[in-house]
């Protein structure tokens, strides 16, 4: 009834090609942004900020990155965790070598280092596809993780092998380090995520996105139409790793605030992000957010939400129950809609167009 494009006529191609051609969608996005920028920081507690919202945003960014590679270009990667690690370490090195430059510059620059490494490990993708490529990207995961442990230069020869994060400020407000409030870190992260999501959406709606999807859907036809396979695939690896790298830097500096980084970027992380992309919806940016929310927020809600409403849960039982519930829900959603939560969302919108008169 309210969600309907009737009466919204497009008279120019640009307005027809807009990313949100329906006015209700534009209003919806406005509301979501207002919530994220105003209401959540106003009303959410520090706990929700730092253990729900910040992890959610970091994972969303990583999931968008992997979705560009796996969902849009059809190349499976199990090296996301390692590419995130490259971002984190690159940011750490840059920050310690050039302490005068603002940390946000380094967080974004770290993405380029990750992109370069991604291109390097993406080269085999011209020859191998599918599961075999997944195995080839495992090489990246193990090799890079080995580097994170064995090359002390990366963590500045700390005896503990951990990344130490000092305080860094933006306009005099600490945004990184022990003195940074969750609100400040959240705002920085939110700005990065919004801008990078916007850029990702521009890319996938244009010529580059079309050539990615063309390679995914039918590489032979794409090649015979003059799309260069290697260039297209490597660009996908580069962009994807850029996002992963920025997500890794954000994870280390805006979420963890330092620590034993080699553990944070292990193979589990790669799998977790792959699951987010699959459950959220391959080839969908909004799906990346859904998937990240599902996998990163749900356990937290179960862990702290259930005791809050009076369901007694403690320690090990809680952990087990959470694993069971999340696992069950993953299976449930995959049976209901194998194309992910994004497809459910789409179907819901389609139904809403007809509601309440479905005929």
């Amino acid at each position: 009834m309210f969600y309907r494009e009737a009466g919204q006529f497009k008279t120019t191609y640009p307005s027809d090609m807009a990313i949100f051609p329906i006015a209700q969608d534009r209003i919806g996005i406005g509301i979501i942004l207002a919530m994220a920028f105003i209401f959540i920081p106003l009303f959410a507690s520090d706990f929700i900020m730092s253990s729900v919202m910040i992890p959610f945003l970091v994972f969303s960014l990583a999931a968008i990155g992997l979705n560009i590679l796996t969902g849009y270009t059809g190349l499976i990667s199990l090296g996301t965790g390692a590419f995130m690690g490259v971002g984190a370490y690159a940011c750490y090195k840059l920050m310690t070598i050039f302490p005068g430059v603002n940390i946000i510059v380094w967080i974004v620059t770290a993405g380029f280092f990750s992109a370069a490494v991604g291109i390097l490990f993406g080269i085999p993708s011209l020859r191998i596809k599918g599961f075999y490529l997944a195995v080839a990207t495992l090489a990246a995961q193990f090799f890079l993780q080995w580097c994170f442990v064995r090359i002390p230069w990366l963590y500045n020869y700390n005896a503990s092998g951990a990344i130490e994060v000092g305080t860094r400020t933006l306009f005099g407000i600490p945004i990184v380090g022990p003195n940074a409030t969750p609100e400040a870190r959240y705002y920085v992260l939110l700005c990065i995520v919004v801008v990078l999501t916007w850029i990702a959406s521009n890319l996938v709606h244009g010529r580059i996105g079309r050539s990615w999807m063309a390679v995914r859907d039918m590489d032979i036809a794409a090649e015979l139409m003059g799309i260069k396979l290697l260039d297209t695939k490597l660009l996908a690896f580069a962009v994807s790793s850029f996002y992963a790298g920025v997500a890794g830097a954000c994870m280390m500096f805006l979420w963890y605030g330092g620590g034993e980084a080699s553990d944070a970027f292990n193979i589990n992380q790669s799998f977790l992000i792959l699951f987010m992309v699959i459950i959220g919806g391959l080839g969908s940016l909004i799906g990346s957010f859904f998937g990240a929310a599902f996998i990163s927020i749900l356990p937290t809600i179960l862990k702290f939400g259930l005791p809050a409403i009076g369901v007694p849960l403690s320690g090990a039982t809680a952990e087990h129950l959470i694993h069971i519930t999340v696992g069950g829900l993953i299976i449930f959603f995959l049976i209901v809609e194998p194309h992910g939560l994004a497809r459910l969302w789409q179907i819901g919108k389609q139904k809403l167009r007809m509601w309440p008169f479905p005929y």
Partner: protein
Amino acid sequence: MDASVHHKTSTLAKGDTLLAVDNVSLAFGGVKAITDVSFDIKKGEIRAIIGPNGAGKTSMLNVINGFYHPQQGRITFKGETRQKMRPYVAASQGIARTFQNVALFKGMTTLDNIMAGRSLKMNSNLFWQLWRHGPAMREEVEHRRVVEEIIDFLEIQAIRKTPVGKLPYGLQKRVELGRALAMEPELLLLDEPMAGMNLEEKEDMSRFIVDVNTQYGTTIALIEHDIGVVMDLSDRVVVLEYGRKIADGTPDHVKNDQTVIDAYLGVPH
């Protein structure tokens, strides 16, 4: 579609040799797919390649647009002789094709599929693509206009925003033709454009093929099993059997050729 769409006219006049295949042989290990085949395609004609199953017709198209590399022989396109084509070179020189089994980008809409056909003609750089602004957006609109003309031409306005995976087979074939047309090809290779269609769909498709040929002067090479269609549409026919050329000439000439009749009907050896 107005003339501006097909601005890339080559210097060749109608009737000049556009493509010549000389003594091409192609083998996969011990299997000889094509043996010493030569023929030419003249600018502006509709050239049919026919033959029984496994005669090497599709392999021939694959050789022409560079997907297979022949062991022997030469390919001359627009006066340039090559030992083998490369897919990218073929595409940028103006060879487009459709496939026997529809090879559309299934997850993309009709519009995006045809837009993808314009990839080679789009060149705004990554910087502008990031912001979807300035040159990137101008280019997008300019090519959208061309694509809309193709959509009008093929009468597929209603399915513009439908993912092609959901379309019925006949329409998919039509979208695939549209995608090839978006490349503004000089030589259009059609691999069984009417396979699996009913009579009405065949008539539609034949009309589009003739229109493409007469309106835009596009040279067409087509593989087809429906002999009636082949005889009606084509100017000249080349017949392959077991990878060899057994006949070449006008439809009437080929129809009455004894080797061709034997190849199709089978003769006791």
